[in-house]
């Protein structure tokens, strides 16, 4: 049933275009939304059994030789994600109906749903290979959705960038998964979880860890792989909200959380994951400060949140992990809402520039309320869920050390500022003039943000219920053993709370000096960041590829041939050199070589002479004659060494070949010397070396005899069994007649070819 829940999404994705075949079908999005809604309900129904440590599982064998299996497992962490995915997914499906026009929806929903299915797969897979498959599918659907407005160059290049970065990480992760499988002896996640000791003491642990983290970091846009995420904001806003804030970017976080029980707890883990997370948290928040584009602002703040999550998982204390799980949920709710609000604002006003937005509360009150509540959650004010989350994070920092606390507080400060800029700023003050005249958005578009904001409020009000329903079991999954989490809204006045008050006040203060803050920060803008490096590397790669291809695939046939001949000569010579006791001299007086007659020498000299004449001849016909002479003389050799059939054939073929040459050369140009004298010298040296190699090979081959020839069989059986005295002919038409059949086919094909080439006239049949 879990498997079905995942696959059903793909099935609907495939079929959804059919729903849009009729024009103006307003119902279809609602019908589609029923699927994630139903799934949400289904996943909620699975929560109780997950909470008691008895998650639903499903396993079918699949590609066993490779270690892949079709297994799913719905534990707390998985279900938390699945609910985020299906829940926010439901809202985004509805939201998209208002945001996009009818024509685009038919191309949009399949990919949105494909993404949803893939993401559910990631969350619920219990096999690393299976997880990887879904993982890559999220990259693909993300690619298609980022590039949704594909007529724009920016959309295409951003989509490519996101795909390349996440796929690169994905490939590293694949190697990591394989190493992990080798270390842990299985790809089944639930089985690996019980193999922690074996894995961590294995020599492959560190490479596996690093490679897997590469996958996680790229997917979750951790520094220095973060640059693709802000660029991905060219996607339609529902996509940004859903993929690039609430779900897909958290896949990396999910993976780290998922594998924490196996891989976590070591120094390497703590320093790498914690360090990268902290860095990303600060950089994301800092970069957000100077942004004025709503979506980019949110994107950078998402980076900061992802960094926070990573940091918490890296720290790995029970408190940190608890904080991580809570932040996961809280962020999904408030950031999703804010993104959708941003989309609504853009949809209505025609701009996303926060400096151009103001006083919209009066025309868009419902949106404004949703935005405000979400912003308050993000800023970490009670009684919203964001408050609980932030308090936990502050406590985590305080629990560990001062420096971490400072970093975390800075993050908190940035969050307050961003929340106000995005969720409050556009609605207060004097109404500004915008490209479009703003109205309240339709129901389909305000439903989602307000509902998400409402959920933030709900979760903040009833933390105990939320934690017993899902947070506990999710945290247990991350910790690796059963833990009970009891969340409370109010912890009393403690250091964390005091810090909260401080950050809120400071954040509000910052908001009032926002314009000067931006102008200062923009001066320090960071040009040489990883994004720049990416472009530089890509360009460099292209240049290198072009250069390499020009060098190798230059189109000069004779240089191709030179390379081939040289490789043959060098490798052949090396191989010959390696033969111990190659004694070429032995061939001269070897008993199994035949004696030399004086006319043999003459024939040999004349053959070589003819070949030389053919090479040096200034005249084509003269060269052909010399070639023919060489052929005749070779035929004589065949004759003298007992091969009359061969000799006759050679004579006949030679004459016919010569005729063909003559006939063809009549229509071809005369000999010209194109190449320079030095080229000719080089070629002469190469040819002579190759020739020398062939000579040596023959000598060695004549000298070595591993087994005697099978020919005695033909001699013995030709007459009694094949009724022929000419054994060569009997071999051709009987013993090895398949060769001959192939050979006359070659001839026949050559005939067809010659006919076609010579008779073909374009357009004439």
């Amino acid at each position, binding site marked *: 049933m879990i498997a079905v829940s995942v696959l059903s999404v793909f099935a609907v994705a495939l079929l959804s275009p059919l729903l849009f075949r009729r024009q103006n079908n307003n119902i279809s999005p609602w019908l589609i939304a029923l699927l994630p809604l139903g799934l949400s309900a289904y996943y909620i129904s699975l929560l109780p059994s997950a909470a008691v440590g008895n998650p639903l599982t499903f396993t079918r064998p699949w590609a066993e030789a490779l270690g892949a299996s079709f297994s799913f497992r719905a534990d707390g962490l998985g279900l938390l994600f699945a609910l985020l995915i299906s829940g926010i997914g439901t809202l985004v499906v509805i939201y998209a109906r208002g945001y996009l026009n009818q024509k685009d929806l038919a191309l949009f929903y399949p990919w949105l749903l494909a993404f949803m299915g893939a993401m559910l797969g990631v969350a619920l897979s219990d096999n690393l290979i299976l997880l990887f498959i879904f993982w890559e599918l999220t990259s693909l659907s993300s690619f298609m959705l980022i590039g949704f407005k594909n007529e724009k160059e920016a959309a295409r290049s951003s989509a490519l960038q996101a795909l390349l970065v996440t796929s690169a990480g994905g490939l590293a992760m694949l190697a990591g998964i394989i190493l992990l499988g080798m270390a842990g002896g299985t790809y089944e996640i639930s089985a690996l979880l019980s193999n922690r000791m074996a894995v961590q003491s294995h020599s492959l642990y560190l490479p596996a860890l690093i490679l897997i983290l590469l996958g996680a970091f790229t997917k979750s846009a951790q520094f220095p792989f973060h640059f693709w995420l802000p660029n991905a904001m060219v996607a339609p806003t529902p996509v940004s909200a859903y993929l690039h804030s609430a779900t897909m970017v958290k896949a990396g976080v999910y993976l780290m959380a998922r594998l924490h029980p196996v891989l976590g707890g070591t120094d390497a883990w703590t320093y790498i994951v914690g360090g990268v997370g902290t860095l990303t948290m600060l950089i994301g928040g800092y970069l957000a400060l100077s942004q004025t584009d709503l979506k980019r602002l949110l994107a950078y703040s998402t980076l900061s949140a992802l960094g926070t999550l990573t940091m918490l998982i890296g720290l790995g204390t029970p408190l940190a992990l608890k904080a991580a799980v809570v932040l996961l949920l809280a962020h999904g709710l408030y950031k999703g809402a804010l993104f959708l609000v941003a989309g609504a604002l853009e949809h209505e006003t025609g701009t996303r520039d926060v400096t151009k937005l103001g006083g919209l509360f009066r025309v868009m009150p419902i949106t404004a309320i949703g935005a405000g509540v979400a912003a308050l959650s993000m800023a970490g004010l009670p009684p919203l869920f964001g408050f609980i989350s932030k308090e936990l994070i502050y406590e985590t920092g305080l629990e560990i050390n001062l420096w971490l606390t400072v970093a975390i507080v800075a993050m908190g400060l940035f969050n307050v500022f961003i929340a106000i800029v995005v969720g409050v700023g556009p609605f207060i003050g004097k109404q500004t003039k915008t490209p479009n005249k703003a109205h309240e958005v339709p129901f389909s578009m305000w439903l989602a943000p307000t509902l998400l904001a409402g959920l933030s409020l709900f979760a903040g009000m009833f933390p105990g219920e939320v934690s017993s329903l899902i947070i506990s079991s999710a945290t247990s999954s991350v910790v690796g053993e059963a833990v009970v989490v009891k969340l409370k809204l109010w912890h009393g006045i403690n250091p964390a709370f005091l810090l909260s008050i401080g950050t809120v006040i400071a954040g509000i203060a910052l908001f009032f000096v926002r314009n000067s803050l931006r102008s200062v920060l923009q001066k320090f803008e960071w040009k040489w960041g990883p994004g720049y490096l990416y472009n530089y590397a890509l360009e460099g790669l292209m240049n290198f590829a072009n250069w390499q291809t020009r060098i190798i695939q230059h189109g000069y046939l004779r240089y191709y041939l030179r390379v081939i001949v040289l490789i043959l000569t060098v490798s052949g010579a090396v191989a010959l050199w390696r033969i111990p006791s190659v004694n070429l001299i032995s061939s001269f007086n070897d008993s199994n070589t035949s004696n030399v007659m004086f006319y043999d020498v003459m024939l040999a000299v004349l053959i070589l002479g003819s070949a030389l004449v053919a090479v040096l001849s200034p005249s084509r016909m003269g060269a052909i004659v010399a070639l023919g002479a060489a052929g005749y003389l070779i035929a004589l050799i065949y004759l003298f060494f007992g091969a009359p059939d061969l000799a006759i054939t050679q004579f006949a073929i030679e004459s016919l070949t010569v005729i063909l040459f003559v006939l063809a050369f009549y229509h071809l140009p005369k000999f010209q010397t194109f190449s320079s004298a030095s080229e000719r010298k080089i070629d002469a040296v190469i040819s002579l070396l190759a020739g020398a190699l062939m000579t040596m090979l023959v000598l060695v081959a004549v000298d070595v005899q591993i087994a005697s020839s099978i020919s005695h069989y033909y001699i013995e059986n030709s007459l009694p069994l094949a009724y022929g005295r*000419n054994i060569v002919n009997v071999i051709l038409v009987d013993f090895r007649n398949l060769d001959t059949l192939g050979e006359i086919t070659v001839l026949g094909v050559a005939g067809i070819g010659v006919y076609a080439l010579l008779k073909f006239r374009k357009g004439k049949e």
Partner: protein
Amino acid sequence: MKMDSLILKTTARLLLPNLLLFSLFIFIRGHNEPGGGFIAGLVASAAYALYSIAFDAEQARHVLGIETRLLIGIGLVLALLSGFFSMFGGQAFLVGLWIDLPLPSPFNKVGTPLLFDMGVFLAVVGVTLTFIFALEEVK
């Protein structure tokens, strides 16, 4: 450009039947003495090639009387066919089957390898003449 040589034409006309006879001779003797389908085919082609040089390709085609590509096909068919007989008898492809005929040697033993060789002969003639005629007809 028509370059008639009366002497060559007369000679070619004379040689054609003789060369063909010789070609048949080495074809039939091929199983027991130097020769066989290949060589015979080449000699026969040489005969027609000579004719085409003395006259021209068109007249040589006329004397040949059959489209050369068809000759290739027929040759291949014969060779392939000779392999089928054994398959009908449940044996492998291309196994030689022989029958005795009450004729003088070398006609007393007739078998599928000879049919095969015949195919080779015709295919070689077809191909070689396709080459030569097509090249000669190039304008």
